[in-house]
C-alpha cells in the first residue's frame, strides 16, 4: 500500500502535574497543597488562600497573587502588584517558596561547554552567524576556528577575504559553546580536531533540551502509562556524558558516527577514517605533522565514496532517532543504541517473507521504521531502559 490514511487521533495528553507524586518538587511547602477533587473547574484550584493553578498554564495567566511566593524561571511580576504571571506555557513547579513555570516546549538555551551542531546562515566580515536553534543566532568568530594545516597565527585580512572557503552559507558545523553573552547569544569555537565542518552524512533536527533537563523525567512517566497516543515534543536530546560516538553497524554498514548536538541538531555520518588522507600522501608522517594532515580536509565539502550498505544503516539510525522523538523518549547514546538494536530485532521478527515479494519497490519500504514497527521499537527500548 502506497498510502496510509489514519483516522484522526484525539490528542489526549496528560501533562505532568506538579502535584503528582512522580515529580514532586514541592518538597517542603509550608501550605497544605492538596487538590480539591470535587471542584468542577477545568483546572482545579488549590486550597483557598494559595490559589495556584495546576495543570498547564498559558503566558499572561496569573499564577498566584499571594505575596508569599517568590518568582522563578518562566514568570514575571508587575512592580505595582504582587501577582506572579507566567511568561511561558507550561506547568507550575514549586520549590519551597519559589514558583517557576516549566515550559512544555522551549528553544535551546546555550550553556558553556555544550556540544552543538549548527548551520551557517550568514557570513560577516570577521565571523559567521550560526543557527543553533537558540533564540538568537550564535556567532563563530574567524579567530575561533582552526586554520587548515593547524597553523597557529594571527588572522589576517587575507583570511577575511577568503572566509567563505572555510564555511559558507548552509554549511553545517559541529562546535562547542565558548561563551554565552548577557543577552543569551552564544559564541562558538571549533578549535579542536573533533569539531569543524560536517560531511558524509545526514542532518536531523529534533527538539533539544529546551535548556532544562526536564525531558527525561517528564517523558518516562508519559510513556510508562502504555498509552498508544504518546505526547510528542516531549522527547529530545538531553545533555549527557557522551554526545559523540561511533556505532559499529550491522548489515555490513561499517562504522557510523553519531553526533548529538545538545541543541537538538543531529548529524549521522560515515566514520571518517583518517588513514587514507595520511597514507596517500606520505608514508612517514611524523607525529607533529599528523595534525596538519588530518586538518587539511577539515574544510572540504566533497563527500567520500559511501557504499549503499552504510547509507542504509545511516538512514536506519536516523529513523530510530525519529521514532524515539515521536514516542517522546529522550535521546542519548543509550536510547539510540537501544532503538538501533531493537530495529534490527524487529526486522528479524518481521522476517524476510514480505521483503522478497515487493519487487519494483512496491509497498512499504523494508527500511521504513515508522508505523507498526515504531511501536515495537519503543516497547523494546523502554523494556531495556
Amino acid at each position, binding site marked *: *500500500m*502506497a*498510502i*496510509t*490514511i*489514519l*483516522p*484522526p*487521533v484525539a490528542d489526549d495528553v496528560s501533562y505532568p502535574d506538579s502535584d503528582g507524586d512522580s515529580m514532586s518538587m514541592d518538597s517542603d511547602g509550608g501550605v497544605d497543597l492538596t487538590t480539591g477533587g470535587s471542584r468542577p473547574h477545568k483546572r482545579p484550584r488549590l486550597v483557598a488562600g494559595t490559589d495556584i493553578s495546576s495543570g498547564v498554564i498559558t503566558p499572561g495567566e496569573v499564577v498566584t497573587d499571594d505575596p508569599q511566593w517568590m518568582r522563578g524561571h518562566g514568570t514575571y511580576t508587575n512592580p505595582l502588584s504582587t501577582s506572579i504571571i507566567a511568561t511561558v506555557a507550561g506547568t507550575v513547579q514549586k520549590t519551597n517558596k519559589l514558583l517557576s513555570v516549566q515550559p512544555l516546549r522551549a528553544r535551546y538555551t546555550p550553556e558553556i561547554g555544550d556540544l552543538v551542531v549548527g*548551520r*551557517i546562515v550568514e557570513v560577516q566580515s570577521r565571523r559567521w552567524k550560526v543557527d543553533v536553534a537558540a533564540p538568537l543566532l550564535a556567532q563563530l568568530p574567524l579567530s575561533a576556528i582552526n586554520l*587548515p594545516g593547524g597553523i597557529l597565527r594571527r588572522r589576517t585580512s587575507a583570511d577575511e577575504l*577568503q572566509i567563505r*572557503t*572555510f564555511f*559558507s*552559507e*548552509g*554549511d*553545517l558545523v559541529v562546535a562547542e559553546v565558548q561563551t554565552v553573552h548577557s543577552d543569551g547569544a552564544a559564541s562558538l569555537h571549533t578549535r579542536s580536531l573533533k569539531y569543524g565542518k*560536517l*560531511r*558524509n*552524512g*545526514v*542532518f536531523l533536527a529534533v527538539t533539544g533540551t529546551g535548556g532544562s533537563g526536564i525531558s527525561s523525567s517528564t517523558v518516562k512517566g508519559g510513556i510508562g502509562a502504555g498509552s498508544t497516543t504518546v505526547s510528542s515534543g516531549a522527547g529530545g536530546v538531553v545533555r549527557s556524558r557522551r554526545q559523540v560516538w561511533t556505532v559499529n553497524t550491522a548489515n555490513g554498514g561499517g562504522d557510523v558516527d553519531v553526533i548529538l548536538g545538545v541543541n537538538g541538531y543531529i548529524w549521522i555520518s560515515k566514520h571518517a577514517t583518517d588513514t587514507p588522507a595520511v597514507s596517500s*600522501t606520505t608514508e612517514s608522517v611524523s607525529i607533529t605533522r599528523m595534525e*596538519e*594532515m588530518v586538518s*587539511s*580536509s*577539515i*574544510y*572540504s*565539502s*566533497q*563527500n*567520500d*565514496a*559511501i557504499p*549503499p550498505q552504510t*547509507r*542504509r544503516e545511516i*538512514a*536506519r539510525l*536516523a*529513523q530510530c532517532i*525519529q521514532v524515539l522523538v*515521536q514516542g517522546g523518549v529522550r535521546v542519548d547514546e543509550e536510547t539510540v543504541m537501544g532503538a538501533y538494536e531493537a530495529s534490527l530485532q524487529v526486522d528479524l521478527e518481521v522476517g524476510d517473507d514480505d521483503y522478497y515479494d*515487493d519487487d519494483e*519497490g*512496491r*509497498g*512499504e*519500504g*523494508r*527500511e*521504513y*521504521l*515508522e508505523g507498526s514497527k515504531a511501536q515495537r521499537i519503543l516497547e523494546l527500548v523502554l523494556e531495556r531502559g
Partner: protein
Amino acid sequence: MSAQRQASSASQTPHISPAELSYLWSSLALPNNPIRPDGRSPTQFRPLSAETDILPGTNGSARVGFADGTQAIVGVKAEVEKTVAAADVSSLSQRAQEQFGENQDGEGKSSATTTGHGSWVQMSIEIPGYRDDDALPVFLSEMMREPLVESVSSGGNADGEMAGGLKGRLVINRRWHWRLYIDVLLLSQPLSYPLPLLSLTTHLALLSTKLPKLKSLGEEDPFFDDDWDAAEYLYPRSQSRLASALQLRPPVTLLVISVGENVIFDPSRDEIAVADTLLAISVARDGGSDALKVLSIRTVDPPSRLTQPGMPNAENPASLESAAVAEQAVNGEEIPGVWRPRRGGVKRNTVAKMVKLVLQKGGVGEEVLEGLEGVEVG
C-alpha cells in the same frame, strides 16, 4: 538571493550544505533501490490522518495532517447564482428545455446536455507567510482548479448526472447555477511543497460536499428542501464498491520527483531540494472505464537549481591537496561526492516512467484514490 528564492515557485529553498545535497542525491539516485532518508520506498507516501465534515458551516470540509505536523483545512461553500446568459450555456439548455417534456424521469439526460462554466469554481489558498497574490498560492490554486473543472467523464455509460463533469453538476437550470467556493487553508508553515497535502484535502472536502436537494422543477426559480439530511452529495456516492469505482471523482494531484534514474513519490522537503525534475501530475478516474487518466502535468521549478555548488577538494584553497591535484580538475566534469546544481531538462523516458507508475493498474494513482475513498465521510 532572497528575491531569487521568492521567484522560485517551489517553496523556499532550505539552506542545505553542498555535502548534504551530494549525499542525499547520491542516495536517492542509487540504481533501482533509492535510499530515502526516512526509509520509505519510492512510491510510499508519508502516513497522514484525515477527517471530513469538520466545519459545520460549510457544505463540505476536510482536514488532513501529515505526521510531520503540517496540516491543511479545506472548506467548500456553495451558493446559488444567476447564470449570465452565455452563448453555449443558453443554447445547450434551450435544447434541454425542449427535451424536458419527454423525460420527466430522466433528469440526468437533460442536464447531460448542459455544460457549466469553469469560473463557477473559485479556489483560494492561504499559506502562512505568503500574501494571497504571491506566486505560490496563485500558482497552486490554478494548478488544482484547472484539473478539477476540466475533468469530464468521457464514457457514455457514466452516471448521467455527472456527465458534464463538475461543471455540469453545478448547473441547476437555464438561469441558475451553483457557485463553489473552495477555501484552502494551510495551518502550518509549508515544510515541503504543499501541493499534495492541499490536493488530498481538497479531494476529501469535495467528496464530503453536499448540496441541498432541489424541489423546484425545470426552469422555475430554484427552491430547495430545507432538510439537510436529504441533501445530495456533490459527487454522488453509492454503497457498492464496484459502482463507486465507476463514478466520477475529483482529481488528485501528485507530486513526483526524479533523481537520476529513479522516480520518487511524495517527496519531503530535503528530497525536493535535490530533485532533477519536479512534476505535478493530476489524475482522475475516467468516468466510463476503470482506468485512470492524466488531466494535467505541470513542471515545478525545482529548488535544486538555486543551490550552492560544492567545491571539490582540488579547487579548495583551504585544503592542502589543492596544490598537488590542481591539474586534475577539469571544468564541467562531474566529480563524485561534490554537489553540482541540477540544470537542464527532463528526459522523455523519465516523464514516461512517472506517468506509467501513476496510471498503471494497481499503481500509485489507484492506491491513493482508493485510500481516499476509504475515508469515512459524514
